[in-house]
């Protein structure tokens, strides 16, 4: 039985209430951290654990905490990024609605470590019922003395505020999130200055993902070294993967980083294999923004080694033959899925969600969507394929925030690995534009 850090008690009835959570050992980490440790020691444990940001970029959380500027007389803020809206990713949603106290406990410990007296949880606007669950849980914690003034008699004050977002994907970018939290239009800021120096209300701010923060109680209880012992290499600990698509058992799974992709896809403990009678065609391993990989490359790296569910192994081979772990949105396509249609769909999402601030992303995402729409509906021409590659190259790296990259990667990778299918769409426009038509040419199915 694999180790469970976040989801151990997730199926216990009533775990969303304070009492049941407390019975299962909840809030002991807060007591330990606030009463027996200094903030520096908590940060040190986070560094030792090697836990990496679970929102997508995979930046070590302890290191991010270490960058926080600490000028005298200026408040510091911790903001939890719960604006999860990437297609294919739904892990934070699941975690917050089933076990809200885990996040709140993590927020108390992290705020204590960073010296923040006011912390925010920025929740995606569509998840109104999750916001109510979180607010209920905060009220309970406040009544029991774990939040508010003078927590557990130690003199440490913490106010926790849940802020609903307006439902924009771009507000999951940390600086756009801060703008939105300040009540402005959610446009990403130019960096530098980074939020660790000038963030929310021009004060030093740390923005962390829900899942990263939820790891903190376990790390405090068991020590950073114990956490670092789980996983493989620099990918330590466990990770929530939200599996969807053509598999037998879609859902949210907690895996130890380092499980092989093959095991995760086929074992009954996790996804339970591709649906009966079908074969794997392609796989998006980390949410819609990461490069899509064909079946043979997702199972084995270009060197013939087994591909593992870890930050390093998935990105092995760069973007030529690799992908990224991203936020853990595991989307599986069998041979009935049309890659062109899927790419167009992803592209449509990024076109819709671009904030419109910088020109490459504002104009480029719309252009790519229109060209893909044309190809999918049988009006494409051969030079459209190269045009798409060129547009994606011109967007990538030239934008203010990573949304431009996120829009460019799926298109570039789909053409890189499935160019035949794009060409088939162009040479057989009538056939390809029929609903449900899929390229049946030579493909390496697994």
């Amino acid at each position, binding site marked *: 039985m694999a180790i469970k850090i976040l989801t151990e008690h997730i199926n216990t009835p009533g775990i969303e209430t304070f009492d049941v959570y407390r019975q299962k050992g909840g809030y002991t980490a807060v007591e330990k951290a606030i009463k027996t440790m200094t903030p520096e020691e908590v940060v040190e444990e986070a560094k030792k654990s090697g836990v990496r940001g679970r929102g997508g970029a995979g930046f070590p959380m302890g290191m991010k905490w270490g960058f926080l500027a600490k000028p005298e007389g200026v408040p510091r803020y911790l903001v939890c990024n719960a604006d999860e809206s990437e297609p294919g990713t739904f892990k934070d949603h699941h975690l917050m609605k089933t076990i809200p106290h885990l996040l709140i406990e993590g927020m108390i410990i992290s705020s204590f470590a960073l010296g923040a007296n006011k912390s925010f949880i920025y929740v995606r606007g569509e998840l109104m019922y999750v916001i109510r669950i979180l607010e209920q849980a905060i009220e309970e914690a406040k009544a029991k003395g774990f939040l508010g003034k003078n927590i557990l008699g130690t003199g440490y004050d913490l106010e926790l505020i849940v802020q609903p977002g307006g439902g924009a994907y771009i507000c999951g970018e940390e600086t756009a999130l801060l703008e939105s939290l300040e009540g402005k239009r959610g446009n990403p800021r130019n960096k530098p200055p980074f939020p660790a120096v000038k963030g929310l209300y021009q004060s030093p701010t740390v923005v962390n993902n829900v899942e990263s923060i939820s790891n903190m109680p376990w790390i405090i209880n068991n020590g950073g070294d114990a956490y670092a012992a789980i996983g493989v290499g620099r990918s330590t600990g466990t990770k929530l993967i939200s599996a969807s698509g053509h598999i037998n058992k879609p859902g949210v799974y907690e895996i130890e980083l380092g499980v092989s992709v093959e095991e995760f896809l086929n074992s009954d403990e996790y996804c339970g294999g591709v649906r009966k009678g079908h074969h794997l065609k392609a796989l998006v391993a980390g949410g819609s923004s990461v490069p899509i990989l064909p079946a043979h490359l997702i199972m084995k790296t270009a060197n013939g080694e087994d591909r593992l569910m870890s930050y390093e192994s998935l990105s092995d081979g760069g973007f030529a033959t690799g992908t990224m772990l991203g936020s853990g949105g595991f989307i599986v396509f069998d041979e009935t899925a049309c890659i062109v249609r899927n790419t167009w769909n992803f592209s449509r999402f990024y076109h819709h969600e*671009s904030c*419109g601030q*910088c020109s490459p992303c504002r104009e480029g*995402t719309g252009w790519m969507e229109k060209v893909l729409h044309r190809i999918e509906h049988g009006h494409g021409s051969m030079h459209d394929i190269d045009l798409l590659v060129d547009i994606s190259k011109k967007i990538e790296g030239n934008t203010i925030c990573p949304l431009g990259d996120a829009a460019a990667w799926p298109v570039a990778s789909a053409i890189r690995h499935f160019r035949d299918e794009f060409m088939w769409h162009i040479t057989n426009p009538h056939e390809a534009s029929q609903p449900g038509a899929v390229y049946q040419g030579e493909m390496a199915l697994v």
Partner: protein
Amino acid sequence: MEETKPQLVKITFDGIEVEVEPGTTIMQAARKIAEADESQAALVPPAMCYYKPLPTSGGKCRACLVRVAQGSAKDPRPMPKLVPSCITQVQEGMVVENTSNQAVLDTRKSIVEFLLINHPLDCPICDQAGECHLQDFAFEHGSVNTRYEEDRRTFDKIDIGPYVQLHMTRCILCYRCVYTADQITDKRLHGVMNRGDASEISTYIEKAIDNDFSGNVIDVCPVGALTDKTFRFKNRVWFTKPEDAHRDCDKCCGKTTLWYRGDEVIRVTARKNTWGEVNDFICNTCRFEKKKTSDWVLEGPTKVKRSSVISANKYRADLVRKPDFAIKMAETQYKRIDDTRPYVTDDDTIRHQSIENNDKANHRSLLAKNN
């Protein structure tokens, strides 16, 4: 007590060393080079959204992206991505590549393409033509043909107040007018609505902008999206003669440029510097109501840049040379054009052909009349 000057920072920009104060941006350092030596003006990165008199502007259009080959003397690593030169501050020992780097020029070309795909390209009927930053930018860095085949984004024209018309179709969303309204007027009524390529500058429920400094949004607009309703379709910019003038105004500094056609003042604008930026914003009374020479004290002709379209013979290559990199880019492009038309160089043939064409045209019009 002696004044202590801040330690100057030395950077290398396209192989030219320059010393600037700490906290200066790369763009300002480049402008300093060009101000010292006018022949280097082509080195300065183009700015479509950055506007020095408006703090916090910049970083949006990505036209000024440059490569930093060496971050600083302490940390000589190159920066991983191209950086916007308008908001990136210089560091001691920084090495910046602008026109000397092909990747930068390629990116700039793609930025022109991105800005133009939803631009109507209606320069022949646009009042801004001739003093349009996008036109200059596209002329220097753009491609001759488009790869965009889809419909362009269009909006209806909106009248915002009695003096200003907003033609959103031409807008490149630089946010300059938003910052202007935000920073120099009392009540901000317009901003950016919607998102992505559907974003538009607008006033909420088409409310009129009504304050004494609203006319300045016309001056800051790099394209013809915000135009002066008292000047619309009155004249082409290059037929007018700019004269510096001032008057005693109780609201603003009163320093303006008058644009003459013959004896008539047909437009009043604020004075712009070499970089097309207004330093002293003017009020609506000066701009829209004082259109007689007797209202003003004339100072003399405005200095016009040689590269400006208002300057005579702007497009004669033998008089105004394009910068070297632009010539190189043009050569690589024009060679690829498959132009197989038989060009006639013989003078007599040309004359003969034109007579023939005239005859044909006359004949056609005669036929049309008779029918």
